[in-house]
């Protein structure tokens, strides 16, 4: 994904929590008022320091956590962004404990966004787990250029996130759950396979979710001679290319930084076997 000169520059703001709501399963929705927020292209992310409250300085946990910008709420002043997240460990657990009025440090927007589909072409978006959060803005903008099919997967219905928001976009929504509690019983990549086999060809393919899921999506695309954009995850300390901590191997043997060269990559460029 080439970096475009027009990408919004990152800022560091102590944002104010407007709302932090449990949404079933381990899902939460965080709404932050971010003064000066420049907007974020689809697929870009922020670094959040969870639990930063008032002046009570604590350095454990030390590092911020990367989170996709689910969407920017254009109407609010100061601008507001939403983050959809799952409680995975102590960083996200602390985030879950913030209350309206608390402050959270935001650095962003960061990273290289998805390349938009060619106008008129059908876009297939495949999301699993927390990866769903990276796809909303893409779906919203792609829907203005052509037909969009969004395929979302999770272990069970409760673990799905954002379904209603996607549905409200008017895109075609297909669901897969491993336990069959909603939609197709099985993996979301099976939906992708079916869509491609039934499709007319030429679709732009996007995948974001757990590594095995993205790897499978990439395989499915590659088997059909098709390219696929994926959004990788990795541990990050900075998010803007200076700690060199988020390195992953490229297929050509070189090293890429997920935060600076990604998180969006062409699936064929990724050395899948070398991911952490």
């Amino acid at each position, binding site marked *: 994904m080439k970096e475009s000169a027009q990408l919004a520059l*990152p800022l*560091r703001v102590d944002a104010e929590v407007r709302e932090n709501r449990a949404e079933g399963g381990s899902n939460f929705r965080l709404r932050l008022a971010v003064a000066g927020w420049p907007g974020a292209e689809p697929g870009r992310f922020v670094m959040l320091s969870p639990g930063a409250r008032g002046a009570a300085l604590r350095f454990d946990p*030390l*590092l*911020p956590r990367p989170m996709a910008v689910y969407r920017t709420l254009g109407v609010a002043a100061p601008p507001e962004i939403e983050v959809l997240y799952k409680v995975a460990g102590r960083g996200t657990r602390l985030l879950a404990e913030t209350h309206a009025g608390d402050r959270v440090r935001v650095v962003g927007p960061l990273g290289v966004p998805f390349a938009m589909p060619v106008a008129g072409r059908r876009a297939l978006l495949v999301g699993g787990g927390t990866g769903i959060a990276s796809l909303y803005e893409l779906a919203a903008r792609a829907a203005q250029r052509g037909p969009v099919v969004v395929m979302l997967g999770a272990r069970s219905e409760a673990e799905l996130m954002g379904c209603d928001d996607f549905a409200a976009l008017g895109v075609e929504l297909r669901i897969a759950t491993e336990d069959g509690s909603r939609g197709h019983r099985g993996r979301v990549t099976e939906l992708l396979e079916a869509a491609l086999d039934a499709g007319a060809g030429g679709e732009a393919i996007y995948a974001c979710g757990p590594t095995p899921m993205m790897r499978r999506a990439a395989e499915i695309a590659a088997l059909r001679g098709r390219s696929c954009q994926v959004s990788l995850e990795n541990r990050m*300390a*900075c998010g803007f*290319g200076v*700690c060199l901590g988020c*390195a992953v191997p490229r297929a050509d043997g070189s090293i890429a930084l997920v935060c600076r060269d990604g998180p969006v990559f062409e699936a064929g460029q990724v050395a899948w076997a070398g991911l952490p």
Partner: protein
Amino acid sequence: MGGPAVSTVDTRVKLGGIALRNPVLTASGTFGYGAEFAPFFDLARIGGIVAKSITLEPRQGNRPPRIAETPAGMLNAIGLENVGVDAFITEKLPALAAGVVVVASVFETEIDRYAEVCKRLSGVPRVAGLEINASCPHVKSGGIEFGQRAEVLAQLVRATRRATSAPLLVKLSPNVTDIREMARVCEGEGADGLSLVNTLQALDIDIETRRPVLSNVLGGLSGPAIRPVALRMVWQASQAVRIPICGIGGIMNAEDAIKFLICGATAVQVGTANYLNPLAALEVAEGIEAHARRHGVARVADLVGTIEVPAR
């Protein structure tokens, strides 16, 4: 402490021949090559930046995972990924605005290669000084030796000193029995200043996989967790040598930085804090000035070494 508040504070300090507008630099490896921070603030407002350590050839570094979080700290084993000295000079330096003071950091696996990198950097107009990274704990080939053995360290400083007439700082490893001995060695061989400390050698484990959290097994511990150890070493070294010291280790805010100044550091470097707060170095610089103003300290340099050790 100090007198009544003063209205203006002279923040300038001199670090081994490098003139700094204030005593706050950024630590090598935590600030990229500088340009990455340009969106966040004007880099000319801090004392200077120490660039990522560079080698003769570009290096690719370790496989992932390269970083992990620990209580009030982080582990890293980047493996000294860098663009190499030539690209540093031709690509990275020109990307920085004119007013930015740049210290180049040098690392290599053999002494003559260290000297060669220093030679290439000598006379480059944008390079205000060199910092010899004698202390990287996580590269297999030699990293441990340079800063941990007095004889080897002496050879390294001697060779790099010969290779350049630029201001020469030596960055020491904290993984030693006696930091004073290492400090004296550097002073004896003509170093213009010392930077301390680098990361503490450390290890963490994922108990589910029973594997080290880093691909390299060992890594370097940085962040607030190590600050009290770094402070101790700076104080000890400052009593052992007369050359100026740049204090490093877990500095998160102005208060932390002032502790280093009080313990005898002429300047400080902000490291890990840059990751969590890209404005950290600027905030530290501003906070030191405000502290000096509040406490009636007319020159920040007057804070250096003001530790009050109680009589026994």
